[in-house]
């Protein structure tokens, strides 16, 4: 996990650890918890999903998606 997260920027890491702590969160709850929002939030979550660190319930609609930590990292 450390080797993977080392490649991530700070906001993305913060989001990853927040999702890992709660196991699963709606996207806008992540914004409420971290203060990261808008394009920066979407970019960070997309990066995490691309690296298979998290999974999205609705990849086509981030706005109403639930972000869950991937099995390997729970």
């Amino acid at each position, binding site marked *: 996990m450390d*080797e993977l997260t*080392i490649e991530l920027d700070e906001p993305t890491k913060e989001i990853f650890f927040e999702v890992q702590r*709660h196991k699963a969160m*709606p996207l*806008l709850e992540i914004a409420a*918890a971290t203060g990261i*929002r808008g394009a920066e939030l979407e970019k960070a979550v997309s990066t995490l999903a691309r690296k298979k660190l998290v999974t999205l319930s609705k990849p086509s609609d981030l706005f109403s998606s639930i972000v*869950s930590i991937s099995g390997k990292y729970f």
Partner: protein
Amino acid sequence: MQPLAALAGAWTILLIPFVLGLAGGFQTIHTKFDADSPRVLTTFSGWIYWLSRALVPTAVYVIWYRMQQPPQDSVLTALLCGVGSEAILRSRFYLGERKQSDGKVEEVAKGVFDLVHWYQALCLKAAGDKLATERQLFIETLLANETDFVLLARRAHSNAGAWAIEEEKQKLLAVVSDLQTKFTKAAQNISGSKLEQLNREFILEFGYAAMRMVGRKSLKTLFK
């Protein structure tokens, strides 16, 4: 209570490790889910996790009891099983050090805790997935008719005055103020559907932020 007679001289003594185990399990749940902790116990996996954390120290006590000749109850041992199993389950042993790719030195430790951690994560992941869906449904239903973030924030600002705990009230007001500032900045130079979406995003984000602070019950009062 006849079947319990084989497990301990007085079945009531089993309550000591059982209750201590429940307390340890709930503490772990609370660390992860804060205000949503009681709701974890509405999920099957949450219950399994919580009960299993109580059954482990109880089983340790029963084993100790049956190993004696003749079997005899001990309140002190029951207490030690409750507190001690928690300590053993959380123990890890230092094996050495490992250098990471960024140069940092990481301690390598293994123990029963690794197994507990995996089991804990497996159960709480299932509970977490269910709760996240519930929270989303709750917030989206509660705020379904809200279209104007500024109006909602003003209402919440007035209703926050009803909060009896000053610290909680100040935290709520700080969140309202912070989101209002950010919304004003983000809403500049946009209109139409983009502004509608921004309103919706801020309304829902505010809902989640407030829910984390005051819980679901009080949320209805805040947004009334």
